C-alpha cells in the first residue's frame, strides 16, 4: 500500500535533490518522446549541450538568452510568492522596452553623452512603465476583487498590439521615418551609440543586464527574507485571514508586490533595448515569449531569487540551443515541449518535498487488527 503523509519538516537536502531528480526524469521522458518520433536522443542532447554551453562562444550566447528570462523569472517569483499570479510579465516587459527606448531617444536628442546616465534613465523609465502596467491588474484585484491571472494575461495581448501600433501602424515617436526605406519597411528609431549598454569579459561576454538582474535577485532576497515587508508577504500568502487579524494591510501589499513584479519585468525590457536590440522591435519581442518562459523559470526555482539566476542560465542554454539548432533535425517547438516536461516533472516532484511517500506492507497487518478483524473475532 502506498501512503502519502504530510512532512512536518522539509529536509534541506530534499529541496536540492528533488529538482535535480525531476530534471533527470524530464530528460528521460524527453528521450522516450524523441525515440518514438524517430530521432536519436543521445545525439540531440549532445548537440544541445554543445550549442548551449561548451561550444565556441556558446556560453556567451546562452547568457544573452538568459538575461531577459532572468528578469521575467524574478518578476514571476516576486509575485507568485504572495500567491499573486501575475502572468503579465510579457506585457510589462514590452512596456519597459517602450519606456527605455523613449528616454534613450529623448536624451539622444538633447545630446546627453555618457553611458551611465543612459543606463540609469532607461532603467528608471522602464521600471516605472512596467510597474504602472502591472498596477492595472493589481488595482483591479485589490479593490474590485478581480482575478489577476486573467486580467494580467489579457493585458499581454493589449501591450503586444500597442507596440505593434507604435511601430507599424502609426507615425509615433518611436518609429523611424527618416529614410524612404524605413517608411516602407517600418522599424523603430535607432538609439544613440552612447545608449548601448556595455559588456564585460572577453572569452565569456557578460551583458550588463545580466549583472543588473543578479543585483535585483539579491535585493529581492533581502526584501523577502530579511525585512518586515517580506515577512508580511509570506504571512499573507500562507494565511490571508491570519494576516487580516494581525492588522496587515493586504491591499497595499498587493499593489506593492505587483508594482515590484512589473517593475522587474520592465527592467527586462530596458535590458532588451539597451543590451541587444538598440531600438523598439515589436516583432522580436513578441516572438520570444520571455514572459511565459519566466513563469517556468520561477516555478522551477521554487520562487527562490538565487535559484532563479541558476535556472535562467540553464533554460537560457536550452533556448539558445534551440535557436542555434533549429532546422530539419531540430524542429521548432522542441524547446517548449522540453520546458513543459521539465516543469511537469518539477511539479510532480514537489509532492516528494511536501509529503512523505511510504510503500509498506503494513496495510495487511492494519486490516488484521482493524475494527473489522476485531468484530470477526
Amino acid at each position, binding site marked *: 500500500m502506498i501512503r*502519502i*503523509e*504530510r512532512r512536518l519538516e522539509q529536509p534541506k537536502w530534499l529541496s536540492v535533490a528533488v529538482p535535480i531528480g525531476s530534471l533527470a526524469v524530464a530528460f528521460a521522458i524527453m528521450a522516450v518522446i524523441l525515440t518514438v*518520433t524517430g530521432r536519436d536522443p543521445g545525439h540531440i542532447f549532445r548537440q544541445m549541450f554543445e550549442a548551449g554551453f561548451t561550444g565556441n562562444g556558446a556560453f556567451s550566447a546562452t547568457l544573452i538568452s538568459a538575461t531577459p528570462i532572468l528578469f521575467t523569472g524574478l518578476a514571476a517569483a516576486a509575485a*507568485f510568492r504572495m500567491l499573486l*499570479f501575475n*502572468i503579465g510579465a510579457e506585457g510589462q516587459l514590452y512596456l519597459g522596452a517602450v519606456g527605455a527606448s523613449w528616454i534613450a531617444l529623448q536624451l539622444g536628442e538633447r545630446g546627453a553623452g555618457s553611458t551611465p546616465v543612459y543606463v540609469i534613465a532607461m532603467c528608471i523609465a522602464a521600471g516605472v512603465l512596467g510597474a504602472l502596467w502591472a498596477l492595472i491588474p493589481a488595482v*483591479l484585484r485589490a479593490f*474590485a*476583487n*478581480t*482575478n489577476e*491571472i*486573467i*486580467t494580467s*494575461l*489579457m*493585458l499581454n*495581448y*493589449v501591450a503586444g*498590439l*500597442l507596440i*505593434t*501600433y507604435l511601430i507599424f*501602424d*502609426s507615425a509615433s515617436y518611436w518609429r523611424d521615418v527618416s529614410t524612404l526605406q524605413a517608411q516602407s519597411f517600418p522599424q523603430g528609431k535607432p538609439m544613440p551609440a552612447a545608449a548601448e549598454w556595455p559588456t564585460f569579459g572577453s572569452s565569456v561576454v557578460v551583458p550588463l543586464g545580466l549583472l543588473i538582474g543578479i543585483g535585483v535577485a539579491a535585493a529581492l532576497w533581502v526584501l523577502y527574507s530579511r525585512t518586515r515587508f517580506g515577512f508580511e508577504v509570506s504571512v499573507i500568502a500562507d494565511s490571508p485571514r491570519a494576516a487580516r487579524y494581525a492588522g496587515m494591510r493586504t491591499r497595499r501589499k498587493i499593489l506593492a508586490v505587483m508594482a515590484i513584479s512589473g517593475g522587474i519585468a520592465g527592467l527586462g525590457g530596458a535590458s532588451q533595448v539597451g543590451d541587444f536590440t538598440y531600438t523598439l522591435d515589436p516583432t522580436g519581442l513578441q516572438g520570444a*515569449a520571455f514572459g*511565459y*518562459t519566466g*513563469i*517556468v523559470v520561477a*516555478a522551477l526555482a521554487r520562487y527562490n531569487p538565487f535559484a532563479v539566476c541558476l535556472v535562467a542560465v540553464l533554460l537560457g542554454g536550452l533556448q539558445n540551443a534551440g535557436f542555434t539548432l533549429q532546422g530539419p533535425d531540430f*524542429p*521548432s*517547438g*522542441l*524547446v*517548449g*515541449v522540453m*520546458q*513543459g*516536461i521539465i*516543469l*511537469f516533472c518539477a*511539479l*510532480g516532484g*514537489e*509532492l516528494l518535498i*511536501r*509529503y512523505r511517500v511510504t510503500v509498506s506492507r503494513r496495510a495487511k497487518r492494519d486490516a488484521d487488527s482493524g475494527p473489522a478483524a476485531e468484530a470477526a473475532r
Partner: protein
Amino acid sequence: MSVNDGLVVVVLAQAVLYGTPLLYAALGELLAERSGVLNLGVEGMMLFGAAVGYWATQRVHGADAAVLVVAVMAAAASGAAMAAIHAFLTITLRASQIVSGLALTIFAGGLGLSAYFGAELDLATLPATQQFASLDVLGLADLPVVGPILFDQSALVYASWVLTLLVALYLGRTRWGLNVRAVGEAPASADAMGINVTGYRYVHVLVGGALAGIGGACYSLSIIPNWFAGDSLVNGAGWIAIALVIFAFWRPGLCLVGAYLFGGLSALPAALQAHDVTITPELLYSLPYVMTIVVLVVVSTGLAKRRLGAPAALGIPYVREER
C-alpha cells in the same frame, strides 16, 4: 443589397461562428471547475486539438462527413490526453492547479507541442482538404435576419447548442450532475456520502479537455481552415473561455450568451474592414481582451462578491487524510 448582407446581420452571424469555439471550451472548463479543478491549460489544449484535428483531415480518407467526424473525435481525444496530464498532477500528485495549468499551456501551446507536431508533420504546407460547410437543415437560411444568423451555420454550431442543453440538464437534473456539484462544493461531504471524488474529478477534467480540443478544431476545421506556426490560430481564445466561465457564474446557458458576445467582438475587425470602415486595426483587435477585463471587473465587483456560482472547493486539492 438585401438586409442579410448588412453589417449588423453579418457581424451577428459571425458572432455565432466565432463564438462557437469559445462556447465549447467554456463548457468544458465549466465542467472541470464544477468538479473543483481549475484548468488554466485551455489555450494549450485548444491549439493542440486544432493541430490534431487538421492533421486528421489530411490522413483519413473516406466520405467527407465521416472524415470530419473522425477529425473532431481526434481533436477531442488529444485535448483529453493533455487534460490527463493536468488531472494526474493536480488530483493524484496534489500539485498547484494554477502552476500546472500554466505549464500545460506552455507545454501544449504555440511554442511547444503544437508547434512541434505542426513542424514534424508539415501541417503548414498542407492545404486544407476538408472543412465544415454551412448546413441549411431546416431550409430557413434565406429568412431575413435570423436566417444567416441561426440557420446558415455549420454542424459544429448546431452541435454546440445541443451540448449546452445537455450540460445544463446534466448538472441540474441528473444524479451524476448533483454529485459533481457536491464534489466541487464540499468534497469531504461528498466523500462521506460515498461519492468517488477522485474519479469524478478525473472524468470532468478529461471531458473538459476533450471539449477544449473540439473548440480548437472549430478554428482549424471551420473558421480558418489552415495551420499556422505559432499561436495565432487560437490567439487567446482559451483565456477568454476561462474568463467566460466566471462571467457566466458557472451556468451553461450564460456561457452561450457570453461566447456570442465575445465572438462578435472577435468578428468585428474583419467585418468592418469588408465594409470599408477604417478604424485603427490594433484598437479593434484589442477589443475582446479589453472587454474581457471590463466584464470581469463588473462581474466581480457586483454579484461575485457573494461568490455567486463559484464552486467552494475550486482550486483546492482534496486530500482525504487532511480534511
